[in-house]
């Protein structure tokens, strides 16, 4: 990507990514993307008994937009209920970042998928269901 095509927010979240790390014994963890394409995103969720996301961390292999999208996504899900988190779209992540270059839109999509994958894992572990949630695509090992 050409320098200058990223918004200040993207640069900020890339330079000072929020919520980097892992959560031990997470309520849910999801990994999406694949290394061949150059993007892997892993999101960890800590969800309390009321279904509220009390913590969220990420690790990402990928470009500046991928790092910024994961950082923003973790900020957005924190404090939300699982149903609210479910409804965070890639568009919302993009808007929160003041936009992404066209060739980087897939990074925000990956963030949405990573949240969904982590929520799916939570549902599997707790035997619950979230309306509209589908199993994640298993392309990590492609």
């Amino acid at each position, binding site marked *: *990507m050409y320098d200058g095509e990223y918004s200040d927010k993207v640069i900020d979240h*890339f330079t000072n990514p929020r919520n980097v790390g892992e959560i031990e014994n997470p309520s849910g963890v999801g990994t999406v993307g694949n290394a061949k394409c150059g993007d892997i*995103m*892993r999101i960890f969720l800590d969800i309390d008994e009321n279904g509220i996301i009390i913590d969220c961390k990420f690790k990402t*292999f990928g*470009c*500046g937009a991928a*790092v910024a999208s994961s950082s923003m996504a973790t900020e957005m899900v924190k404090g939300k209920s699982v149903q609210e988190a479910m409804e965070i779209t890639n568009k919302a992540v993009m808007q929160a970042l003041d936009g992404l270059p066209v060739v980087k839109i897939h990074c925000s999509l990956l963030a949405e998928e990573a949240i969904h994958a982590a929520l799916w894992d939570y549902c599997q572990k707790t035997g619950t269901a979230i309306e509209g949630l589908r199993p994640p695509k298993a392309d990590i090992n492609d």
Partner: protein
Amino acid sequence: MEDVYLDNAATSRMRKEALDAMLPYFMDEFANPSSIHAKSRVPRAAVRKAREQIAECINAEPSEIYFTSGGTESDNWALISGMEMLESKGKHLIISTIEHHAILETSYYLEKRGFEVTRVGVDGDGIIRMDDLEKAIRPDTVLISVMTANNEIGSIQPIAAIGKLAHEKGILFHTDAVQAFGHIPLDVKGMNIDMLSASGHKFGGPKGVGFLYIRKGIRLPPFMHGGEQEEGRRAGTTNVPGIVGMGVAAEISCTDMENKIERMVELRDHLIDRVLREIPYSRLNGHRDKRLPSNADFSFEFIEGESMLMSLGMKKVYISTGSACASGSLDPSHVLLSIGLPHEIAHGSVRISIPEDATMEQMDYAADCLKQTVDTMRSLSPLYDDFMKKQKV
């Protein structure tokens, strides 16, 4: 720290002498060298001088140098007009898999026009496999085009041997020397080169000007049609300032080259040694010694090149990457895949190309920044996590 520009293979800063030499030809001596009147004399003489300066650099005759708009035009001209000229003899072209897009895309174009192309692979060091090249030659092979030095991983090809082989088989040999001209010694006679492409801005000349060397006796038809410029071989009003600047830049680049190379190699090797020693899970791409004195290309496992580039840019270190994410395409560089790198490692590749005026302090600063950046990016990487956990088990 001031800007540390390590992207010289993308383009170089102009040499002051070249710029100074150009300036009179914009305002005072602006006349068209193709005009008949007396005002055309000075610019005409200036173009003649530039032709001599360039010919001198590669052991050619001035009449064998044809000015173009740059490396891409020279490559297109040599391949397209070359194949058209030789069509009645055969329709087969051979290139390498690591050619610049100016050659690669032109070869796809030629295929669409009914020509046949074989792309010969390279070894793990990015050097063409000579036995494969020999095997690729067919009775209808009429042209071989292999770059002198690769733009990404800097590997220097056995040009003299390829030229010799081509000539033994009665095949014409073209080389894209865009990265090599002005950086390493070239001798079109000694290296059996029939056509050679170069570009002004890669060695301290201006952008928008280049040349094609065409050996005397090869009747390469024109590619640009129009006026009678360049002996009727390349139409278009002569770019006098550009040509003058390129001539001066060529002369300076080719003067005292051995000493310059020695100094560049010292800078390059210091950087390579530090990176390989101090950054784990890193590798140098391209041959350790048979590489451009200015080129160092690395892959760092578990991280992605564009994010490294961004992070280094914030430290005012300017480099390039072979990662797909940088260009918006899906695949990483064809060169890195050609030397056998898996996609995920190719994505974590960066190219460093060192300008002539770089200093040892800059090399150390770049190495320090690379180290920090790789550490930071790995601390974000789930791949690195997984790898480290496996190591512990």
